């Protein structure tokens, strides 16, 4: 799901099967709702609706509401209407297939330009109807993955009454009673890196932690290296002074919202994160690290 891997940890080993069942069911629902690469998903149906009002499920309405909230809280830096920009960059199928396809000519003949913008999305949450104005096309990838991690962790902890950690491609949510010393998490560029990869180890006891990076989900397009974090102002991959940003927040969704926005905002993200009080670790392209708001000391010898 989401073209990535999932990790599920519980503090009561005997509960792992039940926890897995809960997670599998939730993730299947979310995938069917918002996958951009499944023709039978609600998101694909909505993107193909040509701006006509479309009835959606409660699951989809929730995921879209979360994405719109992220857009509002970041002043549009995290925008769900990046679908067309990503498609134009060749990211129109599962990421493994994009990378396997190798270099490809640009798919758009003209400049991409700014994305339509999140205010073009009309969500009637009560009536569960959505309309996309001005040709907006949705991609809920970033916030939906984090929201999925939050929902899995919350529901597993509530039903099984144990501590739980859910990681979806490095977006980590925890719930329930944590281990005595917290959940140890290795912060790296790539979620698939081994636990001893260059980076920093921290612990969390509640909420979520997410990392965004321009170095992992990359591919070549017309001879240039591109990545998946779109700057809504240009419709192009964000040109950030940060290669990787990790943020801890009250939920994984909020952590992901802030880490993605920080990549898009570039240097200005440092003051923004300080002002919001969000603990964060920001890594420049040369490997130097900045931290904010109580993020633990990062031994330079340990960082990468």
């Amino acid at each position: 799901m989401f073209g990535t891997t999932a990790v599920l940890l519980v503090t009561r080993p005997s509960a792992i099967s039940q926890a897995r069942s809960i997670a599998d069911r939730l993730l299947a629902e979310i995938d069917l709702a918002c996958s951009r690469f499944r023709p039978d998903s609600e998101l694909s149906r909505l993107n193909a609706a040509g701006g006509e009002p479309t009835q959606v499920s409660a699951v989809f309405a929730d995921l879209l509401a979360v994405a719109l909230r992220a857009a509002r809280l970041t002043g549009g830096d995290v925008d769900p209407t990046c679908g067309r920009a990503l498609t134009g960059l060749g990211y129109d199928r599962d990421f493994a297939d994009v990378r396997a396809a190798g270099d490809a000519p640009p798919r758009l003949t003209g400049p991409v330009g700014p994305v339509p913008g999140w205010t073009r999305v009309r969500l009637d949450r009560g009536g569960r109807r959505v309309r996309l104005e001005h040709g907006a096309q949705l991609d809920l990838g970033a916030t939906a993955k984090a929201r999925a991690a939050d929902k899995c962790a919350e529901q597993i902890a509530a039903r099984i009454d144990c501590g739980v950690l859910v990681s979806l491609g490095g977006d980590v949510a925890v719930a329930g009673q944590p281990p005595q010393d917290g959940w140890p998490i290795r912060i790296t560029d790539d979620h698939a890196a081994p636990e001893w990869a260059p980076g920093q180890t921290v612990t969390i006891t509640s909420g979520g932690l997410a990392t965004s990076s321009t170095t992992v989900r990359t591919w070549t397009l017309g001879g240039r290296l591109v990545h998946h974090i779109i700057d809504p102002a240009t419709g192009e991959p964000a040109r950030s002074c940060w290669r990787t940003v990790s943020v801890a927040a009250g939920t994984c969704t909020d952590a992901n919202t802030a880490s993605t926005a920080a990549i898009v905002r570039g240097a200005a993200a440092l003051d923004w994160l300080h002002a919001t009080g969000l603990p964060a670790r920001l890594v420049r392209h040369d490997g130097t690290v900045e931290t904010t708001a109580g993020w633990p000391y990062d031994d330079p010898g340990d960082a990468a």
Partner: protein
Amino acid sequence: MPQHDIRTAAQSREAGLAKISALSWRAGAAAVAVAGLLTVALGQHSSARAVPPEHRTQGSIVIPAQPPGQATGTGQVTSGAS
């Protein structure tokens, strides 16, 4: 000053004031028209970019109950980009 000259001066003054008044009215009318056009233009721009009512909710990004703790060694999971 002869009576004739006084009358002529008064008539000239009245005529001048009438012209100024007419010009003022025209300038005022033009200003109102320009202001109206600007209102319409800005209104259209504003409505195009305005935040729809369903998006005008309160809230903020929630900071964690406590910041991450210092740890040594490896983690049980990795948080990195995917």
